[in-house]
């Protein structure tokens, strides 16, 4: 059986920063990721990030991904790639599947950074080839460099829907419309402005009724909805599109946290069922930490800061950091996180995170 001090499950934005922080402090760290290379969603984020200098504002996600890969290597982080963690056993042993065999990895600390899954929206015709997640589209255009279609309907005007629409234009596709069921645009106004000035209509108060086509999507029928989200008869419009992208939210990938016995809280503002954690990102089980979208759907910037916090706290608990230095650096990271959770886009998440941390003390 293999052994590591800190096992980081998931090598995305949060996992990589957690591994880098704890490895730099001196711990022996292994990232386990099911993909061929780490990076998670970062390499799909070809736009410039917001925030401040410490959050690497103005830098593209892809560049941050490359920098983190290099930093992880320099810090001596071990990686197990093409490897799935299928289970966590009570003594913090991890069950791994690699290729055609299974093995176990013993660890003292586990940091779960398993990210999130795209939500789906079902409607007649949604199983037709051509209906896919917006994140799936992003993978195809930015990683695989192929276009899933020329004429696209984007369902959802949150940040994912708006950003992927912009990236589809950059990839050479035509976004015929972005539709949103709410009466307002949930994503950043600036993301919406970019695609509006490129001529993409954003229709609020609309939903997709059905996808039509013989063997794949050929048309989408959309309609206006009333305040009860019911389609308004007579408002149907037919759009000639080949691809329908669903950008209807993300949910934490929390199977391992459930399995391990973490306490959960239901918080819609953070994507649904979220594992509770304290101000060190540790959950109710000693030695198990959570970070990134798993701990609540936010952004890459918050994922990276939470990863650093979890990694630092984990290394400190193993004795790799003098308590005073640990306290100071964790406080700094909490401040950086707080700075990202303010304003009309952030305060809902800040409130939800407080509720999540209070859930640790319940029962």
């Amino acid at each position, binding site marked *: 059986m293999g052994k590591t001090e800190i096992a980081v499950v998931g090598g995305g934005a949060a996992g990589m920063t957690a591994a880098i922080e704890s490895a730099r402090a001196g711990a022996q760290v292994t990232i386990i990721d*099911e*993909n*061929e290379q780490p990076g998670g969603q970062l390499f799909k984020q*070809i736009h410039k990030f917001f925030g401040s200098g410490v959050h690497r504002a103005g830098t*593209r996600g*892809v560049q941050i991904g490359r920098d983190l890969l290099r930093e992880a290597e320099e810090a001596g982080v071990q990686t197990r790639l093409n490897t799935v963690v299928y289970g966590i056993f009570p003594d913090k042993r991890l069950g791994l599947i690699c290729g055609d065999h299974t093995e176990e990895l013993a660890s003292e600390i586990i940091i779960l950074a398993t990210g999130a*899954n*795209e939500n789906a929206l079902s409607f007649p015709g949604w*199983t*037709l*080839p*051509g*209906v*896919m*997640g917006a*994140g*799936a*589209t992003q*993978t*195809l*255009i*930015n990683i*695989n*460099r*192929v*276009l*899933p279609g*020329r004429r696209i309907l984007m369902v959802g005007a949150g940040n994912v829907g708006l950003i992927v629409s912009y990236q589809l234009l*950059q*990839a*050479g596709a035509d976004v015929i419309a972005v539709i949103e069921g709410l009466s307002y645009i949930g994503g950043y106004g600036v993301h919406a402005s970019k695609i509006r000035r490129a001529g993409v209509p954003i229709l609020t108060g609309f939903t997709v009724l059905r996808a039509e086509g013989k*063997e*794949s999507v050929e048309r989408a029928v959309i309609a206006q909805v009333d305040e009860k989200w019911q389609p308004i008869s007579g408002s149907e419009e037919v759009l000639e599109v080949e691809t329908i992208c669903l950008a209807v939210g993300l949910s934490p990938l929390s199977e391992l946290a459930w399995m391990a016995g973490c306490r959960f809280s239901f918080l819609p503002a953070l994507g649904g069922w979220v594992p509770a954690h304290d101000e060190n990102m540790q959950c109710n089980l000693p030695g198990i930490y959570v970070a990134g979208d798993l701990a609540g759907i936010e952004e890459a910037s918050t994922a990276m800061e939470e990863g650093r916090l979890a990694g630092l706290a984990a290394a400190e608990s193993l004795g790799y950091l003098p308590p005073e230095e640990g306290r100071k650096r964790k406080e700094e990271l909490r401040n950086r996180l707080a700075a990202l959770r303010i304003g009309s886009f952030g305060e809902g998440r800040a409130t939800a995170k407080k509720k999540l941390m209070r859930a640790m003390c319940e029962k």
Partner: protein
Amino acid sequence: MRIEDHPILGKVERGRKITLKVDGEPVMAFEGETIAAALIASGQRVFRYTEKRVEPRGVFCALGRCTDCVMTVDGQPNVRTCVTPARDGMIIQMQGTPDQRETALDAGEGEG
């Protein structure tokens, strides 16, 4: 359709050209890309048909979770094409096609 040049990502760097056999037909691909990417680039959208209702399915999640994109690869069924790298000479077949169904019934498999 392939994206050769991109305002942010620049010109694409690809591995060497390889050939896949997809349901008997040659399909060009590049070493290192996923099977699904190669098929989408070649214009293929239907990856399989469902068992019960014979409905077409294609790529949905593109990261190996939903299994909508599975195909038989070199004799192995249910391979997730969106996360499997293409290799030269791979033999790829759609699953659940109507003619496969007829063959199975003739052979006495399936409902009876």
